[in-house]
């Protein structure tokens, strides 16, 4: 099968975030956060509920008001790109809580993922690839997305993001509400996508999944980076556990 993502052509396709600040109704949700996602790498952001992970991702997407010193993807200045145009610059977004279009059939959901592209033969080829990656979506293609189980909806959300043939995928808590078996399935998918050269920015509460899916991680607490390092190092660091438990 051909790769779902456009292979990153050069290292210039790195996502660079510097000085990201988000205020949410008088509350500072994210404070001066900086990180980068090198091309083809998978970076994780972990932390407890309410640590500012989701806000970070939404702010990068431009879905919520933000302040940022630098936001670049390769040589594109994303700080001036509005949310709906992000996808046209190769950035796919998998929202938290499986925000699928519940009242539309599975296939429509996927096709809408390719909204920014023409719905032509090439798009249908991508659709075939997504069905190959998630066979269950193919079986359920005419069902309403809202009638799918939690795990299937999560797959649909990822599949929908892949339909735009992104170079960088932003994932917001793909493990939320899933059984350990399904979390394993998601992990396998993420590892495969990574092997195909797609860059990943994974925001998660499930540290185990994140450590296995990414090469390095940030641990955020109260909107700030508390620690960072390679996933291999972090998973053996007792400090992570302390921060993570909020103790």
């Amino acid at each position, binding site marked *: 099968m051909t790769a779902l993502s456009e292979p990153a052509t050069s290292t210039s396709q790195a996502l660079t975030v510097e000085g990201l600040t988000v205020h949410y*109704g*008088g*509350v*500072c949700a994210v404070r001066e956060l900086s990180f980068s996602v090198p091309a083809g790498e998978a970076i994780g952001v*972990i932390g*407890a*509920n*309410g*640590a500012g992970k989701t806000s970070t991702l939404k702010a990068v997407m431009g879905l919520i008001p933000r302040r940022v010193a630098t936001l670049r993807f390769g040589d594109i200045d994303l700080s001036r790109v509005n949310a709906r145009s992000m996808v046209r610059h190769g950035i796919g977004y998998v929202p938290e809580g499986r925000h699928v279009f519940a009242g539309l059939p599975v296939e429509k959901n996927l096709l809408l993922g390719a909204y920014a592209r023409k719905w032509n033969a090439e798009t249908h080829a991508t659709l075939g690839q997504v069905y190959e990656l998630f066979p269950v979506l193919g079986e359920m293609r005419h069902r309403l997305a*809202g*009638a799918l*189980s*939690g795990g299937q909806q999560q797959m649909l959300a990822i599949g929908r993001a892949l339909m735009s043939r992104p170079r960088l995928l932003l994932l917001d*808590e793909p493990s*939320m*509400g*899933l*059984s*350990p078996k399904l979390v394993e399935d998601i992990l396998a998918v993420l590892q495969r996508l990574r092997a195909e050269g797609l860059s990943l920015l994974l925001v998660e*509460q*499930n*540290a*185990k999944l994140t450590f296995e899916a990414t090469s390095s991680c940030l641990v955020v*607490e*109260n909107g700030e980076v508390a620690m960072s390092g390679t996933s291999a190092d972090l*998973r*053996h660091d007792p400090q*992570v*556990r302390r921060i*993570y*438990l*909020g*103790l």
Partner: protein
Amino acid sequence: MRKKLATVALVGAGAWLLPYGLDSYAIHVANVILIFAVLAIGLGLCMGVAGQVNLAQVAFFGVGAYATAILTTKAGLGFWVAALLAVAATVAVGLVVGTPALRVQSHYLGIVTLGLALAFTNWVTNAQVSGGAEGISSIPGPTLPGVDLDSEYLYYYLELIVFALALAFGLFLVRTRLGRRMRAMRDDSLAAGALGAEVPQLRMTAFLLASVYGGVGGVLYAGLIRYVAPESFGIANMFLLLGMVIIGGRQSLIGCVVGAVSLALVREGLTDHPTVAQVAYGAVVVLVVVFAPTGLAGLPARVRAALARRRRQQSAAARLGPFQPYPAAGIAPSGRPVLEVTGLTMQFRGIRALDEVALTASEGEIRGIVGPNGSGKTTLFNVVSGLYRPTAGQVRFRGQDMTGSRPYRLARAGMSRTFQNLRLFGDLTVEENILVALDRSPTLASWRYLLGPISILRQDRTLRRQAGEVLDRYGLTEFAQSRPRSLPYGIQRRVEIARAVAAAPSLLLLDEPAAGLNGEEVRQLSEIVRSIRDSGITVIIIEHNMGLVMSLCERVTVLAGGRIIAEGEPADVAATPAVIEAYLGDSMSTEDLPSVPEVTA
């Protein structure tokens, strides 16, 4: 305070002296404006204060006017007797129009009330008793010994007194218990219900108030104009009223009055060009909605806020005070079950969120409920606290079967809860948030408002003192007058717990109280929860923070996929293979898992 009194005195004197400067036409206009102001206050109470969309206010107005007309001309009653009966009739109609509010809200309520208003116009246009399209003329006016109310100048004073009473009563209501509860319901009816506010009765009260004001307006109108016809009570005037309330600022009764006066004046100024006036006020409604949703009354506050923002970019963050523990109740917990849940099943369109869940919490314990995201924990709380009616199963609370009871009944029976995503009343101050919870008086007891302000004020003072104690205990005194929205997250969390405990529950349900808190805040939280328990309140806590659960709870229940997979002491539960598999992950056995419970924490 003195400044306020001076303003009131000045405005009062101005209104009293106004007729001396007006010719006979102008005084007529002033009389009509006062009637609109009374109607606007009623609409403001219903829509702005209680949040109930009411497009039938003009029909209430009509019922009051028509009833007066019919009772005086057809039944030959005196004006004052007719007036009393007319207001009573309007209230009866108001309660009928309000009943749909028990089932539907927002735009549905808008269309139903509008439809009923049209039904009223349809009836008066056709009915014989209401004089059909011609209406009823030569209504006898009100008489007062020694005062000639036929003179519009003297009628003005009658109206002014009624208006002043109406406004004063409205303002008093808004600032005391009933109004506070209605505002709480407007901001978040779910949370208000969970604190024991009888949402159905409050909604009916909103319509009752609107109809009283509408009826009074109608009586005054009949006495002033001496003639009623259907077109005075049509949609056009309804929208004019709505415009007044929106432009003035629906949440402020003063705003409603200002809106009524200014819009009526504009309409009067453009009396030769009624359509131009209509275009103008329609456009202003649109502009207000888009640019100044709080209306004219909200402008000063917005300007002040903008100035404050400019002045200090970074304010010195106010600090949360320390929590002062409750005195221990000193009674050994009896171990009697407070909450017994059996065979609870909750089905949502194909998804079984809860599957035969059984749970017993006994008096004086802190019970932890853990489980992966989406395992049904919050659904369990929602069923127990009455937000959802379970598909099957039973919820017994303090020995009584309370399955499917309304949230406010459960709250009044002694169950209190917090919400995962914070449901504070955003437009109430922190103190008022606490006051709503402290106030346990039944809404039906609001008839006492008729007895005069003294007893209400006395009770309010007691409540405020208690609220002061609660704020003090939770270290929130500094924020008493702040809106919750403007506070940092950690403080909002604490306000919500303080509010839930202020309702004096015997069972407290905490839904992820540690979410978003930092280490120090979590430590304080665990201290608070322990103290709450020691004061004699049973606590059930849903939490992701395993450290907190392990250190705080005597027993832990683990949910996964809507089913209970383990229950017992924290250390035992943490060692159950099914739990490790479902929740903690399979690397529990190794050292490196971040979410290893710290049993000794």
